[in-house]
């Protein structure tokens, strides 16, 4: 059988299985088995067992369940209330008022949680009813939330970032360093958008403004103190080199339990719910990783990644053109696949090409988080949209329209990131010295 036919069979197996609705992990695993059978004569089953075992028991990956657990615990605390009350007085003076709390609270929560769905859900729980009560326009409440929720994946810790790091063998600590400044810049860009929007719509935008409260700044900071301490423990310990990502995650779990005890929201039932929730999420992710790990081994044998890297290399595209094409590609892919699956599935093919094109992998990781998140707020499949649909009861069309300006802000940020790669690469360089 000629190589070309084998490649066609291999790729169509993948697309048919995924399209049919076979669970992603199983679809990837099946494709990998077919690929190994077509392209190698190694014992397939044994290679599969060894690959899966060594990946699933690796120390780097242990950060994943722990960060998931941490997020699950925090989701069940009174943190959404704390964040809203602590940040509202500081941000309400800006044009756009409390809309900025959506962005601010998302950025702060993102710094202790690795998930964008959890960020949207936690911030929205408090912010949606409060903003509605003050007559803020629905489309802006939803738009800012779904956009800012994406910071959950960008600002470290980030679950997708861990998966990217494990997939391409880059240091997770360094990726966490690289993502910080871009995350903050994107948050500022969201806020700038809100300010501009508020100035343009000055006449129609009339939210109810609360009476100025007399609480001192010191008191407000004291309210936010537990959260700031937790951020310090998790991100601080990684940045200072005191702890690895896994150790920081374990400290984070401990810190979150203490925080929920301090807030008197710790109960045994919420604790066991948090465990069952994280066990489910972990199993879901690991199932995809299992398939993807073995698939990338099989993919190596097919020669597709090398051929693709050579073809793209021969076109001699400028880095900007390549990034533009990739961005388009990921946004289209995001219409069919969820974020995690699109990361693991494409990296098996795209990694050699990206490396050959001379991109810094830390920079690329940051870039990838943003595009994947952009894909996640575009219909028909977009998890932030689903979460908001559940929370607001609005239909998908309305929510995606409301999110569209944020999508454009993120697209603008990609351009900025491409023009100033230092945003991502500077901090890791400084910190690892």
């Amino acid at each position, binding site marked *: 059988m000629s190589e070309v036919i084998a490649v066609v069979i291999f790729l169509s197996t993948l697309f048919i299985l995924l399209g*049919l*609705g076979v669970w992603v992990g199983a679809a990837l695993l099946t494709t990998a088995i077919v690929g190994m059978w077509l392209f190698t004569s190694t014992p397939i089953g044994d290679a599969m067992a060894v690959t899966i075992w060594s990946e699933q028991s690796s120390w780097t990956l242990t950060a994943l*369940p722990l960060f998931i657990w941490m997020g699950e615990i925090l989701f069940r605390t009174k943190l959404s209330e704390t964040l809203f009350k602590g940040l509202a007085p500081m941000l309400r003076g800006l044009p756009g008022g409390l809309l900025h709390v959506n962005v601010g609270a998302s950025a702060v929560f993102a710094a202790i949680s690795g*998930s*964008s769905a959890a960020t949207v859900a936690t911030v929205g729980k408090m912010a949606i009813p409060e903003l509605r009560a003050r007559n803020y326009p629905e489309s802006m409440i939803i738009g800012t939330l779904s956009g800012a929720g994406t910071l959950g994946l960008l600002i470290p810790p980030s679950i997708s970032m861990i998966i990217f790091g494990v997939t391409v063998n880059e240091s997770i600590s360094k990726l966490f360093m690289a993502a910080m400044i871009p995350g903050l810049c994107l948050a500022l860009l969201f806020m700038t958008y809100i300010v501009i929007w508020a100035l343009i719509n000055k006449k129609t935008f009339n939210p109810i403004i609360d009476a100025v409260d007399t609480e001192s700044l010191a008191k407000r900071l004291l309210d936010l103190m537990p959260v700031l301490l937790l951020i310090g423990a998790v991100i601080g310990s990684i940045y200072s080199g005191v702890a690895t990502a896994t150790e920081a995650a374990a400290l984070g779990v401990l810190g979150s339990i203490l925080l929920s005890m301090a807030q008197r929201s710790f109960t045994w039932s919420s604790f066991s719910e948090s465990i069952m929730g*994280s066990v*489910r999420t972990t199993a879901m992710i690991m199932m995809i990783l299992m398939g993807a790990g073995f698939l990338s081994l099989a993919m190596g044998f097919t020669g597709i990644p090398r051929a693709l890297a050579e073809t793209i290399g021969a076109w001699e595209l400028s880095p900007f053109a390549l990034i533009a094409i990739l961005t388009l590609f990921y946004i289209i892919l995001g219409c069919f696949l*969820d974020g995690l699956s699109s990361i693991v599935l494409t990296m098996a093919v795209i990694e050699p090409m990206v490396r050959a094109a001379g991109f810094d992998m830390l920079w690329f990781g940051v870039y990838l988080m943003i595009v994947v998140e952009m894909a996640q707020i575009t219909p028909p499949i977009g998890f932030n949209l689903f979460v908001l649909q559940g929370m607001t009861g609005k239909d998908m069309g309305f929510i995606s329209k409301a999110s569209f300006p944020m999508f454009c802000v993120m697209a603008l940020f990609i351009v900025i990131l491409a023009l100033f790669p230092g945003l991502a690469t500077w901090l890791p360089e400084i910190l690892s010295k």
Partner: protein
Amino acid sequence: MLRTLSTVLDGIYKAGAAASGALLILLCSLVLFSISSRMFGFYAGGATDVAGYVMATSTFLALAYTFRSQGHIRVALLIQNFHGTRRRVVEIICLSIMSVVMTFLAFYMYRLVYDSWDFGERSEGADAILIWIPQLPVAIGAFLLAVSVIHTLIQTIFDYDVVNPETSEHEGPNEV
């Protein structure tokens, strides 16, 4: 009869998930233990190796429960437009494919344990534990997953009302 068996099986998957939860707590404690060992300067040996094994075990034991509670991700673009019998047929095809692959996986995970046991293989870390010990629960988890997929397949064929994805109350995947 079939339903009683199904309830018993669901109980087993749930027990697997509970064990997985306990292992998650153990994983966290192990990592905290290795941090404190460094801070206070006592010896914690292969804690990092063991942490990896605990994670693998924890993950695999929860796979079946996650599958039964619809926690795994699939591409819903096509199937969400299918209803009634058509949907049932597609579900049967998907579940059959998955049953075969998961049985294949379970068998080779078991072979891995057998080989490790046969050769008396030990981990490379400081503790040099016999590697089949952590591999065994992993194989059990893979086996449970295969059982749960076949279980769902049989229900889809003979007792569709119980597992009908269009009507059943399910939690859905917790995406990140």
